């Protein structure tokens, strides 16, 4: 019996402990005043003290989680508002994003007493707060809370502890500030443009939009910031609400910018003016952010000096310097030559900067090296590098022959030549500036155009300085080695950095564009080499007194052809749109009574690509497909695929290409020849559409 009693006692003592798990949030109600007058509104806050490493959630919890809720039980006539939500914090969880609070948070609520409330009474404000608190795991917790609030005849004194805290929370909470906001979807992104006096001068770095609705954006995706004279534009990744080409009626939420938070509501309309055009804000904590203009200019000057040593630039400059050295005596001529070079370099730098600033102002999302984002430009630069390399290798000469490299120094064409060399050196240097100068130039471009031009000017001066210096200091000039047979060897050795530059640009192109562009560049490179060879042959004939008109002409034609091959625009919509093949899809399409064209292909199959270009992706076939409502399925065998292999085998094929046309009348597919013409495809399709 005693044992049983002991057991019973032990059980009853153990039970409450088991039913009361450890809480991760301490919750209480706190009031800003020690009492309330009849008809008065005061603020009461739900205070959450959250365990370290855990968090509760904002009104939109983000990708997961749940906002804190509160349900009041109030005496008759008393009213409670919803929470005034402080701006949340971003809480990334693996690949997801949550919005919420850590540490301590006050969620204020406005409580209004009825006019009939009797002074001298003390009312019990009761509330049940429910919140999800998460760390690695999530625990739903709730708290039944009460607050005793005396009713006073007049406004009661402030609560010494909570009045300041609640007032501060309310003051810092996001509020509307008359900001103009609009959003526009672009594919999978949506641009949110916001302007207004409140944010005009704010530091835009780190600006962030917290939507009220969980479906309008993909919370975890970065928000790209573009500054404007009157505000900013955020590029967001659109959320579920944009699925299927739809768009929500509004995008409302909190814009956190410059240490403040504002409520905004954007409609689907054209962006307010002044929301973009000034580029992204400088990175926080980046060296560039603290750079003054003078410091930036000095860095640019040093950067320009270093550029002289870049493999793209050095060969050109070394040759030019060597030619100056040959005329050490004619210091006047050398000086003019040097100045012309410097002017060419600086003017070109400023021109590039001007173009860049203009494009920036036009709102293009570009940076330095933007010229390298365009595949045709990369391809042309690669060909230029190759041509310079071939020239250095001695395949042909440019302008004056090597032997007479310095002969025209004082001549007018020499000056123009020097100016051109300066300009060329900058163009050629551009690819090298991208990786080395990117951050500094990026900073320059976020500044005013005048400041940006100053930085570019410093860069140009630094770039031109060594050459001008050599021209102006006869001492230096005379110390340069005399020209001689060594130059020929030196020049040929210098060809290799240029070949390297060409190879690097080709690699860049391969990253940007498809195998087809790469093939076109290789073709153009062969043409360029052949053109250089013919040109060189013509030069030697001319030197022997011949008139190599035909050679010159064919060299020129080949060069033009090479250039055309890389810059000729590709038919962007060239490839017919297709769906990936699957037996299910085929069956479905056939059930719909549509003729189906199945193309078994692979990237590595040359004849497949040729067929695609010359026969399938032609306007003839395109219109025939449209006319007969042909469904185009592509079975891509580029990677091993057992389903496709089995299909091929069932048609007696061991590989691709295989073209099948299924008629509307049912039955097996008709196998087309392995070498296609538009006519074959069109006829097969016409036959297939006959029931």
């Amino acid at each position, binding site marked *: 019996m005693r044992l049983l009693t002991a057991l019973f006692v032990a059980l009853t003592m153990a039970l409450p402990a088991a039913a009361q798990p450890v809480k991760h949030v301490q919750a209480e109600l706190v009031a800003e005043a020690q009492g309330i007058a009849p008809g008065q509104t005061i603020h009461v806050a739900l205070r959450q003290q959250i365990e370290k490493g855990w968090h509760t959630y904002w009104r939109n919890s983000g990708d997961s989680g*749940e906002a804190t809720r509160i349900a009041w039980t109030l005496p008759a006539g008393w009213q409670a508002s919803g929470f005034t939500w402080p701006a949340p914090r971003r809480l990334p969880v*693996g690949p*997801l994003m*949550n919005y919420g609070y850590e540490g301590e948070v006050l969620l204020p609520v406005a409580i209004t007493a009825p006019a009939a409330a009797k002074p001298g009474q003390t009312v019990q404000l009761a509330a049940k707060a429910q919140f999800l608190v998460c760390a*690695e795991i*999530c625990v*739903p917790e709730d708290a039944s809370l009460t607050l005793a609030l005396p009713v006073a005849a007049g406004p009661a004194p402030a609560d010494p502890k909570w009045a300041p805290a609640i007032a501060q929370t309310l003051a810092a909470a996001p509020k509307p500030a008359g900001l103009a906001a609009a959003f526009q979807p672009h594919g999978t992104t949506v641009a949110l443009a916001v302007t207004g006096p409140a944010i005009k001068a704010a530091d835009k770095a780190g600006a962030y939009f917290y939507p009220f609705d969980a479906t309008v954006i*993909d919370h975890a995706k970065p928000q790209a910031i573009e500054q404007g004279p009157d505000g900013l534009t955020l590029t967001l990744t659109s959320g579920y609400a944009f699925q299927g080409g739809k768009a929500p009626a509004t995008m409302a939420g909190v814009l956190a910018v410059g240490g403040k938070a504002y409520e905004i509501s954007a409609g689907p309309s054209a962006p307010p003016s002044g929301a973009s055009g000034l580029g992204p804000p400088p990175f926080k904590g980046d060296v560039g952010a603290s750079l003054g203009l003078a410091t930036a200019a000095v860095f640019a000057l040093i950067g320009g000096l270093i550029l002289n040593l870049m493999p793209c630039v050095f060969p050109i400059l070394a040759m030019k310097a060597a030619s100056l050295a040959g005329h050490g005596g004619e210091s006047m001529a050398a000086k003019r030559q040097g100045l012309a070079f410097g002017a060419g370099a600086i003017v070109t730098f400023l021109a590039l900067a001007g173009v860049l600033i203009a494009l920036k102002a036009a709102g293009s999302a570009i940076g330095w090296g933007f010229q390298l984002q365009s595949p045709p430009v990369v391809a042309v630069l690669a060909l230029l590098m190759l041509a310079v390399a071939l020239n250095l290798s001695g395949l042909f000469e440019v302008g004056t022959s090597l032997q007479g490299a310095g002969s025209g120094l004082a001549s007018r064409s020499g000056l123009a030549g020097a100016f051109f060399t300066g300009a060329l050196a900058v163009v050629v240097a551009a690819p090298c500036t991208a990786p080395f100068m990117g951050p500094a130039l990026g900073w320059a471009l976020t500044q005013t155009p005048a400041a940006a031009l100053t930085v570019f000017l410093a860069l140009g001066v630094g770039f031109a300085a060594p050459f001008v210096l050599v021209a102006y200091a006869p001492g230096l000039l005379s110390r340069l080695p005399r020209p001689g047979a060594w130059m020929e060897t030196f020049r040929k050795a210098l060809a290799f950095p240029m070949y390297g530059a060409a190879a690097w640009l080709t690699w860049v192109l391969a990253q940007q564009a498809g195998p087809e562009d790469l093939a076109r560049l290789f073709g153009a490179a062969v043409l360029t080499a052949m053109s250089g060879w013919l040109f060189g042959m013509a030069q030697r004939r001319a030197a022997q007194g011949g008139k190599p008109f035909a050679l010159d002409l064919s060299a020129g034609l080949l060069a033009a052809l090479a250039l055309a091959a890389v810059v000729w625009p590709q038919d962007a919509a060239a490839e017919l749109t297709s769906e*990936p093949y699957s*037996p299910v899809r085929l069956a479905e399409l056939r059930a719909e009574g549509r003729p189906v064209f199945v193309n078994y292909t692979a990237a590595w199959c040359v004849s497949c690509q040729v067929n695609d270009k010359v026969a399938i992706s032609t306007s003839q076939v395109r219109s025939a497909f449209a006319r007969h409502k042909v469904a185009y399925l592509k079975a891509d065998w580029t990677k091993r695929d057992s389903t496709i292999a089995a299909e091929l085998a069932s048609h007696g094929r061991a590989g691709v290409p295989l073209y099948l046309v299924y008629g509307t009348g049912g039955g097996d597919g008709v196998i087309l020849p392995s070498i296609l013409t538009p006519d074959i495809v069109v006829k097969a399709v016409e036959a297939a559409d006959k029931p």
Partner: protein
Amino acid sequence: MAGAVQAAPQINAPAPDFQAMDADGHPRALRDFAGKTVVLEWISSDCPYTAKHYDSGTMQKLQKAARKQGVVWLTLSSAAPGRADYFTPQAAKAWEAKVHGAPAAVLLDGDGRIGRAYGAKVTPHMFIIDGAGQLVYMGGIDDRPYADPSSLKGAKPYVALALADLKAGRPVAIPVTAPYGCSIRYGAAAGFQ
């Protein structure tokens, strides 16, 4: 490069195919179920939202109703190894036995590949694929994003409604909703596109 990046799934577009082992060690692929409606349900054994729907029996009821309708119900776990709710085949089977779940299979997606292909974010995150392989529903199981079990009463059961639409041959009236629940605990290296 573009090939490595999975675009978010689009409604009324072909659903991403997938392959995974189920808890019984059988390989399962979406294409195995061609012609049938497939429901994907992401779960976590220690998530209060998953618990809300299983403790109340609503999820099991929906699974059984779906089975009767000829729908293939696949329950998935994308929690990474090392996470508290990571599913080994044994753990998955033990959990299903405990909750009396009635899916056609539990798929083990510990490397998060299926989850990432579908952009699955939470437990429960629900997807429905029609017989033609088109994604016809994605989002929450209902319109009550709360852990509180009392929130089930009067909830609008999005998944049940979508299945009813499919059964009646109608297009799904509400094809996209906000998912809610606990974050899926993907592996640390998991990129999410």
